[in-house]
């Protein structure tokens, strides 16, 4: 018997075990007292909060993807905005997620002349970038000019052109900025609240040399990334983590005039798999999770006490789900097809163009069953681009066509469509069987499940639906480029701030997200023309009551036509550890971290 063979085997096992168990120390968090070395600004920003906190500590947040750039103006994805917007960079006016109000931030106040054309913004004295350089009107003008740049064409670009004329900005002195618009503009303050202020003394040269788009990329050394927000970059490790530390010059203070932020660090840990993120939360390596699936709500609710966390109910999402029927016509003169012809088979176009048919579909969908089965009960019915999660713009009593199978059957009977050959599928008056395909993106499990529910619901009307889950990019090509689809189940994200004026592309007949018939050269129907004029009215008045009135009418008109067949919207819940104070998670974007500069770590009993 070769003894050495035994030894070799044993050595292999030991080698493995040794590797596994080296160093099992838990990482403790040192709590260092913060010494404020910079004098407080002349006009500090006094933040309101539940209770004043103490300095120190760290908050660890799990994200599925890393930021792609720190240049908030050129960024396109939420994983970048989560780090930049409100964290690294801030604005003249801040959208307060808790109150859903716009409040002064880098400015102390603003006034708008009675004619609504001229607004004057008073900058905060003593506000400074993270390198100590004061924030003056030069920086405000510079930041606005980038957003309004013709070649960069940022996503906000169109919002700076009410009445077809660009904003005119001027700076009478270093701490005053004047904005002139061609007429009263409802979106003025929301747009100003979306302009993140970047330092002219750092980025001015890059901008003038046409290199702004690649400035502030993720390889920028932290000391060169000068920020205007409460935080600055400490460290970026590709695909691992992004660490922010406090900006020592930040102008925000608490009621006791202690400088904010309280926390030493905010860590965005990249965890691509949600199961792993959940385990990391369980193990205490992560302090908060986002995007929990409704099917897991119960287990988080049950484990709150044991896991020492709170499972916050944020209410309905601001994002929507809906079914659209393809009513697109050829509008592009370069297209090979005849201008004005339909992309869809004319027979099917005639069905879809029939309002009663659309209403019948909407009435056939049992939304309560979808909520119960697809979302485990954690969803609400929604009938607009502004969901019940929106405090300011949600309109409860809009026109809607909810589940009413008998009503749907009557509408179909009125059309004269019935099953003549006994195959279970109804035919139209020319004998074409009513059958169409329903595409949705396969990566969204909820949408695929909803598509299957709709298929079953419509079968009860004798309509045959072929549910076709597709890969996202193919779906979008069908939706916007080749219009090769019959119906699509999709959703829209919320605009920020969540104001109908920011989502004009959905409502205007010329819009790119006016999905049932996009980019119309001029409105094709009287209803669309009416909606277009209501959108225009809605954004060119400062009278809030008038805005609400036009907004309600817009929604009613659209819903009467049933061009969006609305589907339920999911509810959000987030688990966060109990060891933090001043947390106030909300449904509006940056759900958990929006006020992280005011969050503090509660003093912990020294553990053994």
């Amino acid at each position, binding site marked *: 018997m070769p003894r050495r063979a035994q030894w070799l085997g044993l050595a*292999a096992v030991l080698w493995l075990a040794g590797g596994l168990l080296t160093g099992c120390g838990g990482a403790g968090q040192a709590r260092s007292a913060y010494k404020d070395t910079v004098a407080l600004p002349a006009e500090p920003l006094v933040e309101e909060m539940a209770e004043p906190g103490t300095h120190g500590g760290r908050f660890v947040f799990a994200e599925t993807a890393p930021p792609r750039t720190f240049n908030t103006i050129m960024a396109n994805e939420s994983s970048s905005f989560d780090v930049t917007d409100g964290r690294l960079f801030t604005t003249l006016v801040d959208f307060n997620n808790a109150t859903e109000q716009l409040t002064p931030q880098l400015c102390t106040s603003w006034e708008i002349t009675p004619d609504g054309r001229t607004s004057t913004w008073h900058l905060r004295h003593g506000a400074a970038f993270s390198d100590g350089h004061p924030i003056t009107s030069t920086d405000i003008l510079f930041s606005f000019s980038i957003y309004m740049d013709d070649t960069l*064409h940022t996503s906000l*670009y169109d919002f700076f052109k009410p009445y077809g004329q660009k904003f005119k900005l001027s700076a009478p002195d270093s701490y005053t900025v004047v904005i002139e618009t061609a007429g009263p503009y409802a979106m003025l303050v929301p747009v100003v609240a979306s302009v993140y202020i970047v330092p002219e003394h750092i980025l001015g040269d890059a901008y003038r040399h046409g290199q702004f788009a690649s400035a502030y990329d993720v390889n920028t050394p932290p000391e060169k990334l000068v920020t205007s927000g409460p935080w600055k970059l400490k460290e970026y490790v590709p695909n691992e983590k992004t660490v922010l530390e406090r900006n020592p010059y930040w102008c925000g203070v608490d009621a006791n005039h202690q400088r904010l932020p309280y926390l030493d660090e905010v860590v965005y840990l990249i965890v691509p798999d949600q199961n792993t993120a959940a385990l990391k939360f369980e193990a205490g390596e992560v302090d908060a999770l986002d995007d929990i699936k409704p099917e897991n709500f119960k287990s988080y609710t049950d484990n709150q006490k044991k896991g020492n966390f709170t499972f916050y109910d944020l209410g309905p999402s601001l994002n929507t789900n809906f079914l659209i029927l393809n009513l697109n016509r050829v509008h592009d003169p370069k297209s090979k097809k005849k201008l004005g012809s339909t992309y869809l088979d004319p027979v099917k176009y005639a069905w879809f163009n029939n309002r009663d048919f659309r209403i019948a579909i909407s009435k056939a969908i049992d939304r309560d069953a979808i909520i119960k089965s697809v979302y485990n009960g954690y969803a609400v019915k929604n009938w607009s681009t502004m969901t019940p999660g929106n405090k300011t713009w949600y309109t409860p009593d809009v026109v809607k066509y909810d589940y009413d199978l008998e009503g749907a059957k009557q509408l179909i009977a009125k059309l004269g469509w019935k099953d003549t050959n006994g195959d279970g599928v109804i035919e139209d008056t020319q004998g074409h069987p009513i059958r169409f395909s329903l595409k949705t993106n396969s990566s969204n499990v909820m949408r695929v499940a909803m598509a299957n529910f709709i298929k079953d619901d419509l079968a009860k009307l004798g309509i045959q639906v072929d549910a076709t889950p597709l890969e996202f990019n193919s779906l979008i090509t069908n939706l916007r480029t080749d219009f090769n689809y019959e119906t699509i189940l999709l959703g829209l994200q919320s605009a920020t701030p969540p104001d109908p004026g920011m989502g004009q592309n959905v409502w205007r007949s010329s819009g790119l997200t006016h999905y049932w018939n996009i980019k119309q050269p001029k409105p094709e129907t009287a209803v669309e023309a009416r909606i277009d004029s209501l959108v225009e009215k809605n954004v060119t008045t400062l009278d809030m009551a008038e805005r609400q009135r036009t907004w309600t009418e817009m929604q009613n008109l659209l819903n009467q036509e049933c061009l969006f067949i609305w589907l339920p919207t999911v509810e959000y819940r987030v688990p966060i550890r109990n060891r933090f104070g001043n947390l106030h998670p909300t449904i509006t974007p940056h759900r958990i971290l929006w006020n992280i500069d005011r969050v503090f770590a509660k003093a912990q009993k020294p553990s053994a």
Partner: protein
Amino acid sequence: MRTYILRRLLQMIPLLLGISFLTFILLQLAPGDFLSAQAENPMVSQERLEAMKHQFGLDKPWYVQYGLYLENIFLHFDFGESFARHQKVFVILREGLLNTLLLALAAALVTWGLAIPLGVWSAVRQYSWLDKSLSVFGVIGLSIPEVLSGLLLLMLAARTGWLPVGGMRSLDYDQMDWVGKGADLLRHLALPALVVGLTPLAGRMRQMRGNLLDVLRLDYVTTARAKGLPENVVVFKHALRNAINPLITLFGYTLGSLVSGALIVEIIFAWPGLGRITFEALQAQDQYLVLGSVLMASFVLVLGNLVADLLLAIADPRIAYA
């Protein structure tokens, strides 16, 4: 030998060119492009899309795009820029490659560090209960999908607190001394390396066992035993040296495939490697990043094959490359 290596390296150029062309064509044929992801955002207008298309050069015909891509590679050794990250492809891939190589090497250590001794063990005790249970264990390791074993191990780590739950470094890594850093890295490496390493273990173990059994039946081994040499010397000094030859070749080949084969483990264990970068780039149709990573993976694969051939020549004096 030197001319042989040179010739093999030169052969890589047309091969990589072909691969890049095929990948580029496939990316062009795939529906949608990098800008498709903007469809659910109600704030993006047509003009914004056009401006971005122009910025990324996507408004040019595909052959012009490909021509420019090749020109930049040959004239400036520049592999283009990622659309999503606004960074040079080369920089992004370099970061990922090092992490993936670290994981691949650790996994290779697990595989070979266990396969050789266990293979030898079961060969010298052929048909014993130990031999049989090792092959059962091996087959189980081979058949459990990485997703399952990965998540189960992570669950164990989360419940017991013995090991970190995924990731590559602790948050306090920078404050550690070099011993602490090494231990921290090893603790994070243990589980993913185990998962990647255990899958090919069964095959390698059986191979080692089979090879050694073949050699042990040869005449010279009988001669050695007849001479009265101790069994240890017979097995380790005479038989093992000859039996291990084919495994050296295999080792070189696996080096190449390890780099591209760890995607699932990288995702589950939040390991910042090349697989994740490629996967995310593919999903977003970030075309130059996809091209770059496909080229890099092909390069490593071809290089692995070359190393395998060279190792064989070194191990076996009968093989010589003119």
